[in-house]
């Protein structure tokens, strides 16, 4: 019924991409947390959560993502969300999460998205 979730960790030169494929619901919590912890253990600093491979996201899934962004922020890292389709871009704006999204088509490159790093609280 639900499209199986797969999260691939792709370390790149300056940023680690967590590439998500499948439905993001509250059941995604374990898979996403494992991918995040794998990335951190490998030394990841800046992270992009790519949701280009996700067609369905529930509010429970958005809550899971929000917790992940918060965890990254609390540890002094920045996680940006990318690849949202126009509908979910709107949903994220409604939910007050637009500032955590990054549009690869926007002017400049991803480095600008990670300019405002904060020290861990």
């Amino acid at each position, binding site marked *: *019924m*639900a499209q199986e979730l797969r999260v691939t960790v792709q370390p790149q030169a300056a940023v680690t991409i967590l590439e998500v494929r499948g439905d993001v*619901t*509250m*059941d995604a919590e374990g898979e996403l947390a494992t991918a995040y912890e794998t990335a951190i253990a490998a030394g990841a600093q800046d992270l992009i959560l790519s949701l280009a491979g996700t067609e*369905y996201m*529930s*509010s*429970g899934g*958005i*809550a899971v993502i*929000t*917790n992940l*962004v*918060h965890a990254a*922020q609390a540890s002094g890292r920045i996680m940006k969300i990318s690849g949202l389709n*126009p*509908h979910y871009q*709107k*949903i994220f704006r*409604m*939910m*007050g*999460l637009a500032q*955590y999204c990054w549009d690869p088509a926007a002017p400049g490159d991803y480095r600008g998205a990670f300019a405002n790093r904060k020290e861990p609280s």
Partner: protein
Amino acid sequence: MPNKQRLVELRIPSVFGYEKVAMATVTAVATRLGITGERISDLRTAVAEACINAIEYGNGSVADVPVVITMSTDGRHLLVDVRDRGLGETKPRMGKMVDIQNPPTGPHANMGLFLIHALVDEVDIVCRASGTHVHMAMRLPEMALH
């Protein structure tokens, strides 16, 4: 009020994932009535969230207790009703925008109701001991009214 014409009644088990059956069905019905594009996406998401709430809170995720989704039209709106049996919580709480410093807790953090209200044209929620009914209405495009 114009006569209401019932179009489709769907019963899904109270199992997460079956909300996608309701999403597919409402997409087909909305398309027949001339609703297109982002409006369909909005309706799909609202119906999914209503079903998820019904599955979890209303029916306590008891698989063989159905969530009943009714789609009808009054000639001006597509009306979607989602009903549960009130086995669980019967007073849904309204969620809000996310504060990233105080992230939502719990599986849904009540964000579903926030989205439902934001995405469809009219929402009415009736809570009874026998269950919660979520009534959602989406205006039909002008051209579909003639």
